């Protein structure tokens, strides 16, 4: 296993400067944020463009890879997390168009995975969304196969406020949907497993990893704390709104020893990519770096 982080929280800092700091801080791998340079749908923690995938040549791709390798850094994958099942056809097609560019870039650079979301229409039930996924995804999956790239879906429900209520913007969070995904596209699509989502969903970590471990192609280390006052206010029916608080690994309720115990047991030997969405450690690169250092030192003992 190698320890690294997703570069998304440094939207204004060029990739190579982020990489210099990462190497100096003893990180070994980066997941590179690849949102469109020109912008698009913006939300918090989305939008960083550390590689301009739309204009990436093969030689530019190799150059980036070599420069990072020279600093001792691998690339775990390229990350772009939009909503490919968005109900607005224009938003949806823009997301899918760019996703394909990320897939092409992943192939050009010889990287193993493109990390993304399955998507979801918040107003529809899970089963209705799945019907839609069956229409939208086969073509993208084929495109990825043609480029020799595997796809991962993060298991995040993408619900944070009434804006995503009730169904969230990504249906790939429950075991029963994951079984369907793997049945359809298991050769090409796997999990970008982030244990923090299981914390507020209250799903058993060990059971989830034991069932899906062999399909985990990428691992994001994030933590969540349950705000007990917020949960008391609204109850479990509220989709986590107001009580699931993203934290730096070690500052939430994720049982890291159990998670790594099960990951090693299941044979996972890929990257451990810290995802930083902790509002306590935001506002400047300085604070973001402090957050990453806390996470690094929490996780480092498990990663060899």
């Amino acid at each position, binding site marked *: 296993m190698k320890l690294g982080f997703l570069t998304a929280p440094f939207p204004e800092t060029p990739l190579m400067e982020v990489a210099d700091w990462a190497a100096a801080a003893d990180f070994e791998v980066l997941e590179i944020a690849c949102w469109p340079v020109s912008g698009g749908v913006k939300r918090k923690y989305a939008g960083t463009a550390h590689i301009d995938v739309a204009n990436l040549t093969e030689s530019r791709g190799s150059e980036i890879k070599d420069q990072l390798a020279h600093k001792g850094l691998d690339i775990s994958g390229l990350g772009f997390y939009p909503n490919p099942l968005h109900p607005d056809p224009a938003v949806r097609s823009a997301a899918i168009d760019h996703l394909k560019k990320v897939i092409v870039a992943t192939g050009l650079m010889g990287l193993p995975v493109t990390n993304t979301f399955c998507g979801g229409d918040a107003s529809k*039930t*899970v*089963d209705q969304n799945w019907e839609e996924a069956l229409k939208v995804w086969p073509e993208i999956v084929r495109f990825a196969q043609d480029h020799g790239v595997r796809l991962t879906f993060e298991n995040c*429900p993408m*619900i944070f406020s*009434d804006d995503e*209520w*009730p*169904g*969230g913007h990504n249906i790939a*969070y*429950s*075991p*029963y*949907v994951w079984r369907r995904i793997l049945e359809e596209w298991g050769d090409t699509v796997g999990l970008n497993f982030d244990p923090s989502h*299981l914390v*507020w*969903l*209250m*799903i*058993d970590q060990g*059971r*989830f990893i034991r069932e899906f471990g062999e399909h985990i192609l990428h691992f994001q280390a994030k933590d969540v704390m349950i705000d*007990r006052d917020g*949960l*008391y*206010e*609204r*109850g*479990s*029916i*509220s*989709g*986590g709104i107001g009580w699931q608080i993203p934290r730096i690994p070690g500052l939430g309720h994720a049982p890291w020893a159990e998670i790594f115990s099960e990951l090693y047991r299941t044979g996972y030997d890929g990257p451990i990519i810290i995802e930083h969405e902790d509002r306590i450690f935001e506002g400047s690169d300085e604070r973001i770096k402090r957050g990453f250092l806390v996470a690094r030192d929490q996780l480092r003992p498990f990663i060899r």
Partner: protein
Amino acid sequence: MKLGFLTAPFADTPLMDVAEWASSAGFEALEIACWPKAGYAARRYAGTSHIDVANLSDDKAREIADELAGMGLSISGLGYYPNPLHPDPEHREQVIGHLRSVIEAARKLDVPVVNTFMGADQTRNPDQNWEEALKVWPDIVRFAEDNGVRIALEHCSMLFTYDEWPAGHNLAWSPRQWRRILEQWAGTVGMNFDPSHLVWQMLDAERWIGEFGEHIYHFQAQDLHIDRDAFYEAGGAMSNGMGWQVRRLPGLGSVDWGLVFRSLYRAGYDGDCIIEHEDRGFEGSDELLKRGFTIARDVLRPYCH
């Protein structure tokens, strides 16, 4: 604290037959199911009409109360649990009309509370539903005040399947909502407390009773267990209890009854304890229903004195 049960599961048995069994089984109180005689929109566990409230004379009311008293039974409240915020205006008008008849019947029977739901439009979020409640409920509350009757809203979210998804059919489930309700109508509107709902909502029962104890007008004893396999399957908390909240008789679920009674006595609650029976393991015949009630009785009896 008197121990009794809600009569709803005995849909085809006359009230006095139910009462005779209750009395012989050592129960002391009944919540009487008062759905409309005519019957419409019957759902599971709804529809029983043990008193025809629409045609209840003062004399008939006195007769019922006296007959029950003769068997050693008091009436804890009248129960009618519809959806007064249903999006269909006709349906809504119908249920509110009947709710008013139940309120009048409570006055005639000298019963202190009518137990019901606040209701909800399942397609709207809690804040939107609350806006609607502020339009619909003041009239009903005034009507109850005029009749000298209090209203107890059960804090069940009424969400069981995608038919009620995502918001359920009853808005009054969260502390956040309850504070708004009490701010508007405390004194006339209180809580029909049922600890089983707190189990799957993952709400702290001790904290809940500590905060709302003085507003508990009626207490329904139901239990619930979380089917951990179904919970895992459906994606945990995102799936809003669907497929994994399993209603059980008191003693057969995860409610911590010691904690519930400790907190209720501490909060000064001195009303009845009314068993609500929706346990599919004890259904299908009056015989099975009675076995279920007997289990619940023996689990709760040690606490009810």
